[in-house]
């Protein structure tokens, strides 16, 4: 296939933009692999002299406990979020009641609020129920504030499942829960994938709740720890950059391996509106 000038222009532009988008990662990786003596403001773009992983080791040592915290928090939160959203989406599409739409409107609005407006009462409430400062408090927080977006995604997904399936199951004798477990849940995998990826990423990357609900550096998730690391004056930047990469690694890996399903879900309109 001969390349017309237009095609050449298109590919050039695509590569240029790709380079622009990858630039920050290049900087992070390259700096992370330099030794302290090599790191310098004026030598940021230079390749490291060798592949050294010392900074990564050091960063990992500082961050490993927080990484563990993040995992212990994100995984239960994601799983719970998925199921809550799924059941809500199921009821709202297949068992509508008078006022379903208004209810959904109020639910959706919860997705847009600035979380600053609920921080103080949240902290107070968590203190009341003795969950303040703990990872479970964070799990509860994320599951509750994840209700709007997970319900939205599942609602859009289940709207695409023909109602006749539910009606046939009704006639066949399945109960409302039976219809969910036997008919809808087995068909929900794409929905679960999109919600799980989205929630895993949002919750892992959250900073505001993480820094507010947990105050002890030993219990804090990695986003807070990274910010502390990166703001410190005594930590060298190669370590900071390495730390940033390590903190970003889980979500990047999820994206690399499962991103295609996520994109498929997005393009199929999971997040429309």
């Amino acid at each position: 296939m001969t390349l017309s000038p237009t095609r050449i222009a298109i590919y050039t532009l695509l590569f240029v933009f790709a380079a622009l988008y990858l630039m920050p990662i290049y900087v992070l990786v390259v700096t992370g692999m330099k030794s302290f003596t090599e790191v310098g403001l004026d030598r940021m773009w230079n390749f490291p002299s060798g592949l050294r992983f010392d900074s990564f080791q050091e960063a990992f040592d500082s961050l490993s406990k927080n990484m563990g915290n993040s995992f212990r928090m994100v995984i239960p939160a994601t799983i719970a979020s998925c199921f809550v959203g799924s059941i809500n989406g199921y009821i709202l599409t297949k068992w509508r009641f008078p006022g379903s739409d208004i209810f959904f409107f109020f639910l959706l609005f919860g997705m847009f609020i600035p979380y600053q407006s609920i921080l103080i009462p949240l902290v107070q409430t968590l203190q009341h129920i003795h969950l303040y400062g703990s990872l479970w408090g964070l799990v509860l927080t994320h599951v509750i504030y994840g209700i709007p977006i997970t319900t939205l995604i599942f609602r859009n997904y289940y709207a695409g499942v023909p109602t006749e399936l539910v009606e046939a199951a009704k006639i066949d004798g399945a109960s409302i829960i039976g219809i969910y477990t036997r008919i809808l849940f087995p068909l929900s995998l794409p929905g679960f994938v999109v919600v799980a990826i989205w929630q895993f990423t949002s919750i892992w990357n959250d900073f505001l709740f993480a820094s507010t609900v947990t105050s002890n550096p030993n219990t804090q998730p990695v986003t807070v720890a990274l910010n502390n690391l990166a703001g410190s004056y005594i930590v060298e930047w190669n370590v900071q950059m390495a730390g940033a990469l390590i903190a970003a690694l889980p979500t990047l890996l999820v994206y690399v391996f499962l991103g295609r399903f996520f994109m498929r879900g997005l393009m199929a309109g999971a997040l429309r509106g």
Partner: protein
Amino acid sequence: MARVFYEHVTKRFGDVVAVNDLTLEIPDKEFLVLVGPSGCGKSTAIRLLAGLETLTEGDVYIGDRLVNHVPAKDRDIAMVFQSYALYPHMSVVDNMAFGLRMHGTPRDEIRRRVREAAQILGIEDLLKRKPAQLSGGQRQRVALGRAIVREPAVFLFDEPLSNLDAKLRVQTRTELSKLHERLETTFIYVTHDQVEAMTMATRIAVLKDGLLQQVGTPEDLYFRPGNVFVGGFIGSPAMNFFDAVVKGTADQLYLDTQAFQIKVPSGKARALVPYIGETVVFGIRPEDIHDAEFLPAHVRAETVGARVDVTEMMGNEKFLHLIVGGQRCLARVDPRTRARAGHEVQLAFDMDHMHAFDAQSQLAIGAAGGSTASASR
């Protein structure tokens, strides 16, 4: 006992009346087809029976049981949906067995019924497959199988043939009729296609805008339509209608449309005598209008002249699209006709098969066999 009785059933969705005071009794083992244009309420009627919608007013009986508040699964019905509604993640066997499992049927009983149904429908080889691996026709059989294994008191069909291609549709029609004979159970079938109704039904119920127009055998509806709507809906191509003034005397009655005048035979004239001087709707089917030159022997006809607009050769007959005094009509004539587009032709109206309807009420005038239901408007 599996007869079905709708008693003054009304269903409203907000301001819209989908089903309007429907009273209809369906004896056991009947194949009743609910037919009408889209929006006429036929789907709603069947869904009310299934328990997928709640009644606004009235009562529904299955057998002698009042089922208004009985949940769908306990009504002893089975339903075949337009899009088959097969569970995509289950094999054919599991699809068919699902309902029985939910109702607690013992496992060997399930196995027996599934095997039998699969035999009847010829789908034994497909049992392990999933719906996605089946063709449209095969999926439809599985949907039928799922209904058959339930051994219900009533089978409900919601436009099951609409998603099949034309050839398959014709084939499946005969199979459904045979199935009905074999199973000896009440079939209630919804369609918008009057051909399906005419070919399969023991009785047909015509609905329009939520109101029952007429109930009767196919012959009743064809030869003795109770109102203009039924006259025009049943039979394809549709009946021709003319506004006509009744003139003359009891012995010499004739109809005067703007375009032509035509004598009414004595057998029909009696019923029209009260309408002398008034306008009525005169109906005549295309198959009852002949080319005067090729008139079948037994037909006594009145001739009318008309201009031919378009001719369509159908093989065994020709369709003549005609213009009579500014009005359009259609005739199905002997294929040997010499009528050509743009030319005049002499037509013979077989007035023994004429229909007349009251211009106000739209109801048929004269002896009408079969049960006619409430007024059409």
